[in-house]
């Protein structure tokens, strides 16, 4: 069982169950992911596996990105070989577009691939994505404030919040007061989404409900850590 998998949000649709209920699903194209690196306590101080998803053309990848996935000849490497340092294992794949680490120990080795088939037995997943950016938004859009009235003496503050607190005491605005500001483009986790179907052949996962981010956005899928 892989600790997680990386993927891409394809879009939303609906599927019918056998009893005729329509289920809203998000289609996620997940894997196959290459294991690029395995972090160990001895070398890195923590345990994790690093997965990569989506090939990047070599001409667009930096040398460091290319060297991360395959063996490149370099001066430093020759020096290290001369000094007798063991070279790190490489996955020997194309440079990857989306790379993330999953903490925790696992039996995966560098060069292995993680596919959706490792989620065949999983009932529910957590999905992490970057939500759609809405820029600097007012309180009505960002926090669903009601705004103020259109008439009855309201001047130019129709979409403003009302007061932000009391006056002489405390003479300041309490922390956490909801105000206008950057909305969206943040890392969002949707927990405990039911896994409706896993299509091993086409590397697709159908997850019930919505997933943060635009179609084509990258997502991290892992088995849910929610109990019960």
């Amino acid at each position, binding site marked *: 069982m892989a600790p997680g998998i990386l993927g891409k949000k*394809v*879009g939303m*649709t*609906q*599927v*019918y169950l*056998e*009893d*005729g209920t*329509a289920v809203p*699903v998000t*289609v996620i*194209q997940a894997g196959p992911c290459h294991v690029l690196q395995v972090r160990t306590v001895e070398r890195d101080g923590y345990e994790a596996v690093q997965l990569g998803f989506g090939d990047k053309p070599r001409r667009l990848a930096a040398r460091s990105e290319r060297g991360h996935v395959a063996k490149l000849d370099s001066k430093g490497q020759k020096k290290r070989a001369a000094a007798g340092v063991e070279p790190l294992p490489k996955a020997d794949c194309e440079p990857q577009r989306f790379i993330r680490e999953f903490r925790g120990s696992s039996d995966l080795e560098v060069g292995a691939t993680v596919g959706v088939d490792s989620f065949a037995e999983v009932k529910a997943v957590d999905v992490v994505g970057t939500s759609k950016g809405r820029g600097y938004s007012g309180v009505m859009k960002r926090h669903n404030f009601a705004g103020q009235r259109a008439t009855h003496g309201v001047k130019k503050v129709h979409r403003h919040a009302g007061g932000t607190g009391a006056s002489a005491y405390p003479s300041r605005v309490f922390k956490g007061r909801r105000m206008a500001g950057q909305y969206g483009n943040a890392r969002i986790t949707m927990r405990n989404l039911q896994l409706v179907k896993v*299509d091993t052949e*086409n590397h*697709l996962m*159908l997850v019930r409900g919505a997933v943060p981010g635009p*179609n*084509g956005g990258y997502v991290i899928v892992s088995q849910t850590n929610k109990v019960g």
Partner: protein
Amino acid sequence: MSQQLMALVEQPNLKEDVPPFEVGDTVDVHTKILEGDKERIQIFSGTVIARSGSGSREMFTVRRIVAGEGVERKFPLHSPRISKIEVKRSSVVRRAKLYFLRDRVGKAVRLKERRRG
């Protein structure tokens, strides 16, 4: 690419035996209804006034007059709960949505028949 993947997901949910029908047609929609643990078929007949959506999400709206009151039902075209759609009559219509029928009563609701052939 993503369009093709979506089509791939929707493909198994599409019905193959959906008869070709258009907006303005009079249809009988056979729906499966579960009463307790018994299943029976209910027929809703009326005029198709709209079709919306695409792929497995396609829906159609049927309007009929029941006891002088207009009743509309919106069905998912590919739902397994719809066992059959029968086309009874076709009409000449010049628009995709017949929402103007909602404002009409009595004889004005009638549509001109289109002979298929």
